[in-house]
């Protein structure tokens, strides 16, 4: 079940990335392509098999996990900025790109790196499960490390959430409001992941469901915007018409 969700998310995200290639060539909103490409890479790295294969090349010290965290930071940063700009949420942009946002990013990254360095990270293990199992100290560090890794995406999502909620109630076309709703669900799900340490071990699958539904919501929400734009015709894109 979880495997299916993982691979579905990977495929959805990969397909979304590929669909951005024409726009990448046209130099239109290229940061969306980069964000999606990073996201796809992040999903790939979060799946057991690919993770072990890649980490083996990086020295089997779980550097891939640290890499994964920063990839997620980058993807979420670019994506959230675009979304906030698209929905005219200047306060959201300010919160992400302004001093507060940069401070949050720096602080959280520092905590994450320190935790990582302090850990005995030898021995590839997706989700650092085996690393945490080594000893008490490691387990604690993995907990903090994980929390730090979720903190920045949570911060960014909370920054854009008010804009999305506003958009749902705005007089925008239905498809765009639906997309805003999906993005809002994603923005709520990611901060929820901060509560993971409180989830009882028996309900561990909840972590996966929350994580991957969040990503799916974001990807499908964006795709809906592209569908809506296609539906709206090409009048707002005079470029291709001129070329013809």
């Amino acid at each position, binding site marked *: 079940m979880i495997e299916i969700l993982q691979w579905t998310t990977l495929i959805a995200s990969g397909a979304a990335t590929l669909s951005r290639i024409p726009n990448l060539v046209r130099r239109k909103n290229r940061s969306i392509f980069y964000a999606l490409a990073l996201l796809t890479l992040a999903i790939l790295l979060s799946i057991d098999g690919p993770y072990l294969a890649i980490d083996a090349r990086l020295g089997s010290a779980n550097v891939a996990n640290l890499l994964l965290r920063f990839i997620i930071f980058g993807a979420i940063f670019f994506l959230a900025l675009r*979304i906030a700009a698209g929905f*005219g949420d200047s306060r959201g942009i300010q919160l992400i790109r302004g001093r507060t946002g940069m401070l949050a990013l720096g602080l959280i990254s520092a905590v994450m790196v320190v935790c990582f360095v302090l850990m005995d990270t030898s021995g590839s293990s997706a989700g650092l499960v085996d690393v945490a199992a080594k000893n008490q100290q490691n387990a604690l560090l993995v907990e903090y490390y994980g929390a730090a890794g979720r903190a920045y995406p949570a911060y960014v999502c909370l920054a854009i959430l008010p804009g999305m909620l506003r958009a749902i109630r705005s007089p925008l076309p239905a498809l*765009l409001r639906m997309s805003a709703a999906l993005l809002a669900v994603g923005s709520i799900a990611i901060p929820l992941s901060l509560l993971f340490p409180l989830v009882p071990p028996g309900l561990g699958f909840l972590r996966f469901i929350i994580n991957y539904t969040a990503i799916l919501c974001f990807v499908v929400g964006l795709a809906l915007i592209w569908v809506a734009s296609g539906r709206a015709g090409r009048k707002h894109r005079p470029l291709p018409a001129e070329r013809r």
Partner: protein
Amino acid sequence: MPLPAKAFQRWLNGVAPDTSTADICRVSGVKRTTLAQQLVRGKVAETTVVSISRAYNLNPVAALATFDTYSDLASSSLPPSDKELVSQIATVDLLRAVIVRTAPTGSTGTGSTGTESMDPRQPELSPPPHATSVKNWVDAIDDGELRHRVSTATGVAPQNYSAQLTANRLAPELAVATSRAAGVGLAGGLVATGLVTEAEAGWPRGARQAALDRLSDGDLAALSGERLQALGKTLRRQEQDQEQTERIWENLV
């Protein structure tokens, strides 16, 4: 809200006895599937009754009055007030009247009698409804408490009522309830929503033009100004919505 199918069937039997549904639909222009669906659901739309009565040369208002919900339509004989009449003149027509009155070559506004409507420079007013006729009509008969009274009488939430007005719509039953609550002729709302014509509602021919002519230059200018202001607001809101959509395309597509 719409008419019960049973009562409709009874009425139809009286109007067109021994006529097949197919024939009725052909004559009245009501789509067969639409009518069938309405009958199955047990609720027939007022527009259906209006179309059929027109096809059989009946007055649609009188036809509606045969149904319980609208029975008081028959006894209502209040003529429309000047304010109501003017509310049913399209903004463009009002502006045209402003121009005609102030144009140097036109009559200077002193001889405003019924003959002026024959003036070739003053073309006939376009028939109601116009783009904001419902809201303008309610505003024309509103004493400040009207919406509140309609809401209490019908149980329709004020925001739903306002939403209908903004969309230039009003369910026929609500339109009649509004007239009732305002103490004006009951068919006025049906004209404003475009369900029936002014003639069908018993408004005298040329009544709107006459009411317009009775407006003083000052009132006409002020009224046109109000309409323009409202139009400007609506257009600006549309432009903002458009801009918002445009911004999404620009940033996320």
